[in-house]
């Protein structure tokens, strides 16, 4: 031991407390970083759920509606055309008048009628059309309340406030309180939010058409960006000679990841709509634009995944006489799959939440009808969020949050699926 410099042990011991302190700090910093991310996520969810959960309930008012045959079906033939033309909103208005017979002046009636959603009549109409037997009967019906009433019941409008500072007049408030007193006001599950398309009446507005639009768009995006992205990555990583051409491709890919998404919208407008003649507002165009946008993300991640497969695997496969193609498809690709999936998920998540490029290709639009194919006009969930966020009606605030919640729910489902997939692939070897 003589040649060992003296005091090594002592010197190590000297610094050891400090080093452990640093170790602890470093570890805490790491934990802190994770917590920062998680805290924000938690905070987001907290705010969103706080703002949005009420949108899943909708105020209804119980009315005794008389579906008098004279009004609805004067011919008495139960002809669908005739039934469809009848004034159902009028029927509901009559019910309101019957409930509050004291109200007579024109202005007061207007205010009274405003308690019920303009959409209530349409719902009654579809009820009657699906069951013409209802004609002539008197029903006790829960009709959708107007958004202002809904906001009042949910406590977003201050009842004590001065009349000029709320959307509900004093007399309306009086009627609502009467209705509340006899149990004719209740909050029920808002199924319209999930089943109907957009509407300018918040109480009738739903996300279904946007969900379907997003679904078609993501379908197109996934179907194109995953195979093309993976194929590109394989080509660049495994086959391409290292020359100027592949350099060019590589620079291009990195660069495309940096191009602002709205510029992709410009490209989509010029290429797919003006040159290829695809229709505006169609999910297929949105999908194509988002494909171009997510491709770089997928490619970069897929290349990183391929790169991380140890060369020994390739050598082993080549060693038993597999061709290069076989080596890649049978051995390298399955191993790189988890990484590729991660990248694809990040890309798809980005695509799912993207709204700026859709602005240019006509998807920031008012779409009521649910699209039936990727070629029908449609909007997307984030665009719906954006549009609702810009709507003057107060009731859209909670609906905006609720729509974001739905969007996030989809995202969580996507991530969960990816995790399951990843696990399966990881177990395979």
């Amino acid at each position: 031991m003589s040649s060992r410099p003296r005091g090594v042990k002592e010197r190590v011991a000297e610094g050891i407390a400090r080093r452990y302190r640093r170790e602890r700090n470093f570890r805490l910093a790491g934990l802190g970083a994770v917590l920062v991310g998680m805290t924000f996520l938690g905070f987001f969810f907290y705010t969103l759920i706080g703002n949005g959960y009420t949108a899943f309930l909708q105020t209804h008012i119980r009315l005794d509606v008389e579906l008098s045959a004279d009004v609805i079906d004067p011919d008495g033939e139960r002809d669908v055309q005739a039934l469809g033309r009848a004034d159902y909103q009028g029927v509901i208005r009559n019910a309101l008048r019957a409930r509050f017979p004291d109200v007579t002046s024109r202005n007061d009636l207007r205010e009274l009628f405003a308690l019920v959603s303009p959409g209530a009549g349409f719902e009654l109409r579809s009820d009657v059309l699906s069951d013409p037997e209802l004609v002539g009967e008197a029903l006790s019906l829960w009709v959708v309340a107007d958004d202002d009433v809904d906001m009042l019941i949910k406590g977003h409008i201050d009842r004590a406030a001065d009349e000029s500072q709320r959307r509900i007049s004093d007399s309306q408030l009086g009627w609502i309180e009467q209705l509340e007193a006899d149990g004719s006001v209740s909050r029920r599950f808002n199924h319209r939010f999930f089943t109907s398309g957009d509407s300018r009446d918040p109480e009738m507005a739903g996300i279904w058409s946007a969900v379907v639009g997003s679904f078609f768009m993501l379908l197109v995006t996934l179907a194109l960006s995953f195979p093309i992205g993976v194929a590109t990555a394989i080509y660049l990583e495994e086959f391409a000679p290292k020359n100027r051409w592949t350099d060019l491709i590589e620079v291009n890919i990195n660069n495309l990841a940096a191009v602002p998404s709205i510029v992709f919208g410009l490209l989509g407008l010029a290429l797919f709509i003006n040159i290829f003649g695809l229709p505006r507002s169609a999910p297929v165009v949105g999908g194509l634009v988002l494909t171009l946008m997510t491709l770089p993300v997928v490619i970069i991640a897929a290349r990183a995944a391929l790169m991380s497969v140890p060369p020994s695997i390739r050598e082993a496969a080549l060693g038993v006489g597999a061709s290069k193609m076989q080596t890649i498809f049978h051995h390298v690709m399955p191993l790189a799959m988890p990484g590729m999936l991660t990248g694809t998920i990040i890309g798809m998540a980005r695509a799912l939440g993207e709204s700026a490029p859709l602005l240019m290709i006509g998807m920031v639009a008012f779409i009521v009808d649910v699209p039936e194919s990727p070629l029908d006009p449609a909007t997307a969930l984030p665009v719906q969020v954006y549009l609702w966020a810009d709507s003057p009606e107060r009731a859209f605030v909670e609906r905006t949050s609720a729509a974001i919640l739905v969007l996030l729910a989809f995202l969580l489902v996507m991530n969960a699926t990816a995790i399951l997939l990843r696990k399966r692939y990881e177990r395979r070897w």
Partner: protein
Amino acid sequence: MTVAAYVLGRRRSATTTGVSFHSLPGYYGSYVAIWCALPALALYCLWQLVEPGFIRTQVLATLPAATLELSEAELGLVYNDIRNLVEGNIVSGEPNDEILAAASRYTSLQRISNLGITLVVLLVGLTSLGWAFRRVEPGLRARNKVERTMEVVLMAASTVAIFTTIGIFLSVLFEALRFFQQVSPLEFLFGLSWSPQTAIREDQVGSSGAFGAVPLFAGTLLISGIAMLVAVPVGLMSAIYLSEYANSQVRSFAKPMLEVLAGIPTVVYGYFAALTVGPLLRQFGEGLGLGVSSESALGAGLVMGIMIIPFVSSLSDDVINAVPQELRDGSYGLGATQSETIRQVILPAALPGIVGGILLAASRAIGETMIVVMAAGLAANLTANPLEAVTTVTVQIVTLLVGDQEFDSAKTLAAFALGLLLFVTTLLLNIIALRVVRRYREQYE
């Protein structure tokens, strides 16, 4: 038509399945399958492209001469009406006899066309299948041919990126050139003032209109810089913690959770930045006696930083995991603590990959639009003070494009010029970054 396509697709797959029953190894199967599918598919696609035009000509030919004298565009509308009729949609007005005749012609033509293409595709598919089938013999190097085809497919896929770039370049170039006819490129590139307050209506001449892009780029850099200051440490430390310290349960929970951050719509972040962070910073600043704008670069940057955390963490996590265990063992074997090992061995080894991830995140920050649209405001101040309001290139592009002004005014065209400039700038940055990373890699691999 869809039904026909569906039937076709099924028949085609049926024939393909039949082929793969062939007793020779799969490569021969693939070879025959490719030969069977590709020509038929190509033909089918070609027909799909040609068919609408063909039917259109035929249908329109049945219309009376008076109708045919209409302009091409108006004919298109008439034709649309006919097709609405055929598809059972609601039509404009009562259809007259000519339209009805044309509609029935349309229907019959379509039927013939579908039948025809089905037969032709089947025939071509079967013929080429037969041909390929006959060529299957021991001497045929099927594998090489199949693999060659696949390599071509792979190569074709990789050119999509090139075409996208060219497409983007072309789609902004022409409008940008029109802009440069109105505003000199020198003023645009080096002007220190951005104030597109030119009038919307022609009788309102004279407002100041300055189109200097420097403040926009400075603002973009400031906000992205702040975002990177948040995202890089947090993202990197998260990646390190999750890949080196956390046990597998924590990891499998936290990693996807962090990835969710990347999926939150940017609109939501925008609201958060504009309504929560902005005012908070403002109050905080006033408490300290600082004048903080409620649209401060700091607010937008912070929130954007949160958004891009997963871009840094996810990719860093992957490259950190790819660092071989031997290096860790080597370091631990010398008595290094875990943090020393990470800082001095793992990070340097993973650096090229991490830099790649950071560059990607930086790109995302520069190109991010919605957050800054909502939180950063539009005031083009040339400042390095993060407490002041700045604007970014993307904000201006959006604002200019969705504005109410006339479409060929300098204001709108400026958006294209900005897009072009941004595109070129990021291209240059990427070329430089690629060089740097590559040099680093060559040194240590």
